[in-house]
């Protein structure tokens, strides 16, 4: 079944086209991320925003595509309101935020974990695009300054977030820790494997009975 765009299709594809262009330009300057994304070629993640209604499917690969219409079943999907997406995106560890938040995730959780890993390595080489415009010498200096600025921003943000998350995790115990979550994931995987084995066994017994 086609997931119909809720906006005027022309506006919908305009937004996605612009975002796709911006993403691919940025990725062009992060070769490590590009090669990691290439390994996920053809897999898809659908983001369903319920309020305001908006659907986008990201088809992964070296050049990710953003689609308004995607007729196959996506490998994974995320569903929630725009506010819930923004809350997850602003979190220090989006993976933890996804579990604790109200976003609903369906499908292949391993793909989501892989994707999260790829995006956390995103490291844009600012020097290359700037040098293309102003030349190598100035490009190197400006690139260096930008790298420093971003690193400082990242550091000060992460330091503040670390203190806040320590309070949430250790003092207030409002949210499970990473280790607890990993244990939880492991238990789920074990349970999934046991269910698969039991299902296979049950099918075998039923087949034997039928014969």
């Amino acid at each position: 079944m086609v997931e119909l765009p809720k906006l005027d299709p022309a506006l919908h594809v305009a937004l996605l086209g612009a975002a796709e262009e911006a993403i691919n330009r940025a990725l062009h300057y992060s070769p490590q991320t590009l090669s990691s994304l290439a390994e996920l070629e053809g897999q898809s993640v659908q983001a369903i925003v319920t309020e305001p209604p908006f659907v986008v499917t990201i088809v992964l690969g070296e050049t990710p595509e953003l689609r308004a219409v995607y007729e196959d079943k996506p490998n994974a999907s995320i569903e929630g309101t725009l506010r819930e997406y923004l809350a997850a995106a602003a979190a220090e560890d989006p993976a933890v935020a996804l579990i604790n938040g109200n976003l609903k995730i369906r499908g292949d959780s391993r793909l989501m974990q892989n994707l999260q890993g790829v995006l956390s390595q995103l490291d844009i080489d600012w020097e290359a695009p700037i040098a293309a415009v102003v030349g190598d010498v100035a490009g190197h200096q400006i690139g260096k300054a930008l790298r420093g600025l971003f690193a400082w921003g990242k550091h000060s943000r992460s330091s503040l977030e670390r203190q806040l998350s320590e309070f949430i995790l250790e003092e207030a115990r409002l949210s499970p820790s990473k280790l607890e979550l990993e244990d939880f994931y492991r238990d789920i995987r074990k349970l999934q494997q046991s269910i698969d084995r039991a299902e296979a066994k049950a099918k075998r017994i039923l087949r034997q009975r039928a014969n």
Partner: protein
Amino acid sequence: MSEQGKTHFGYQEVDVDEKAGLVAGVFHSVASRYDLMNDLMSGGIHRLWKRFTIELSGIRKGHSVLDIAGGTGDLAGKFADIVGPEGRVVLADINESMLNVGRDKLLDKGKVNPLSYAQADAQYLPFADNSFDCVTIAFGLRNVTDKDLALRSMLRVLKPGGRLLVLEFSKPTNDLLSKAYDAYSFNVLPKLGQMIAGDSNSYQYLAESIRMHPDQETLKEMMLNAGFEQCEFFNMTGGIVALHRGLKPW
């Protein structure tokens, strides 16, 4: 067709045999500036309409696609990238000038495989039955003399389960938009045509032919009558353009 032996050429009523020649004249005249004019006339939005068409085509690697009235090759070029060398994309146009411009443009972009070209009439497509996974016609159907005949011909060359996509100007869904659009089409458009392509009459025809084209529901009905199923349409930019889609039954 309005009455036996007669059809529309814009607002004029002409003999059926005459229409193809008159339309050919229009497109011979505008072929070299066609892309520029499309960008100017639509403010570049025609690219978005086409992008949505490609998304809705459901085309994948290895598929075969026929792009009728493919003109300057916008859709065919994109389809070629998607289907890859193991697929097949035929760019067809009844008009030699448009086909030449399209072929040159695609060759200049280095696109060779899997493209091929055919000067063909949409009413009598020179392809075997059940040949294509997808047939598209973008801004072409309104120029065809006998649209029902053309739709049946498209159905014939599609594989069972294959889809037809018709992208065409249609009827705006909002009265205010409709009035603004009329004013633009009949006052601005021919002047733009005169300035850019040196031909106001062709663009006057363009505006008129859009008004004479069947509206969304009528075209959907025509597709159903031709034998397509699961027909639906998507209004874009307030209904100025509509994308119709229908499937060939299994």
